[in-house]
């Protein structure tokens, strides 16, 4: 199977918590982007979303924190119990895809990665916030299955950006190797861009850094981020920007794509530079429904 579409977008509790009280000049551009992405997903009708997300000490702790973890569960509560009240959204039970998740896990191991796996991952804003806006709760729970893949972005030492890029390529290879029933696959990467979580600079947003990231992505030069050190990223854009690993993995898992930036808003209510970018696949043969948009192709 090949990814037919991709999305990278920010997550932060405040995007959902404070959505209704967010200033219109910040909420409306984001709402338009989310609506657009939701429309495109409705058109594609994916069977499964491979979601590159990261734990925030809900599934793991300093007692045990894997670099990578594949969610193999048959279903996923989004958000986790208790998260619904904090994030101000109803909990929904999304289907998993244990067959595809198990295949990805085995393929990754074949390729030299040894990720953890879990059937009981707990999702907070990392997956819940994007799904709230891509599949609004008032429309019910969609049929789409979720295969979550978590990367450690919060408890150092973290897998390097380059390792995450290679990991994403390995996920792409796993999809290429899958011999089960055909599935329409969408790739999702969430997190970033600049924000400081639990740090003295909490509340800051570095728009200059965010625009630099968006420019690299838009110009098909996202791989330039692979050389950035964690200290450098954290210093400029906060520990929350280390979640760009999820974007890096999504880009690599997509293979060739055309990035289409739909929104960037420095959302002070969510203390995060929030972006939403569509990734149009360019190597889907025979389907013909994704037009090749103008822009950089990587």
């Amino acid at each position, binding site marked *: 199977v090949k990814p037919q579409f991709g999305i990278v977008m920010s997550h932060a509790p405040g995007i959902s*918590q404070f959505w209704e009280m967010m200033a219109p000049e910040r909420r409306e551009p984001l709402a338009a982007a989310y609506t657009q992405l939701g429309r495109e997903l409705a058109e594609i009708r994916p069977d499964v979303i491979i979601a590159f997300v990261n734990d*925030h*000490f809900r599934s793991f702790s*300093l007692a045990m924190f894997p670099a990578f973890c594949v969610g193999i569960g048959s279903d996923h509560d989004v958000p986790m119990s208790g998260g619904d009240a*904090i994030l101000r959204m109803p909990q929904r039970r999304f289907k998993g895809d244990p067959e595809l998740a198990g295949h990805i896990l085995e393929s990754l191991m074949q390729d030299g990665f040894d990720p953890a796996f879990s059937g009981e991952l707990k999702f907070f804003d990392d997956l819940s916030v994007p799904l709230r806006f891509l599949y609004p709760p008032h429309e019910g729970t969609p049929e789409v299955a979720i295969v979550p893949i978590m990367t450690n972005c*919060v*408890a150092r030492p973290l897998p390097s950006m380059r390792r995450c890029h290679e990991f994403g390529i390995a996920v792409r290879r796993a999809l290429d190797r899958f011999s089960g029933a055909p599935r329409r696959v969408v790739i999702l990467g969430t997190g970033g861009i600049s924000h*400081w*979580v*639990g*740090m*003295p600079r*909490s509340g800051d947003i570095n728009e200059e850094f965010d625009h630099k990231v968006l420019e690299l992505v838009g110009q098909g030069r996202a791989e330039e981020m692979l050389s950035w050190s964690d200290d450098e990223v954290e210093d400029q854009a906060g*520990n929350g920007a280390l979640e760009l690993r999820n974007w890096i993995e999504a880009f690599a898992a997509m293979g060739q794509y055309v990035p289409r930036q739909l929104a960037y808003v420095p959302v002070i209510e969510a203390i995060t530079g929030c972006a939403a970018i569509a990734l149009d696949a360019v190597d889907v043969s025979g389907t013909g429904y994704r037009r090749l948009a103008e822009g950089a192709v990587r």
Partner: protein
Amino acid sequence: MQQFVADLEAMRVRYELNAEEADAIARADLGRLYELGANPYLIRFAFRDRYDR
């Protein structure tokens, strides 16, 4: 965090905190906790009420 509030001394012993670390928790001195090396996500998690007001 509730356990820390209920019995700081027991938590100090359990997690082998030094006096400065225990004091920073007791005073909810988030900046000092960060300087002392606490994972900022855990600071955010433990003192969520301060951030979400």
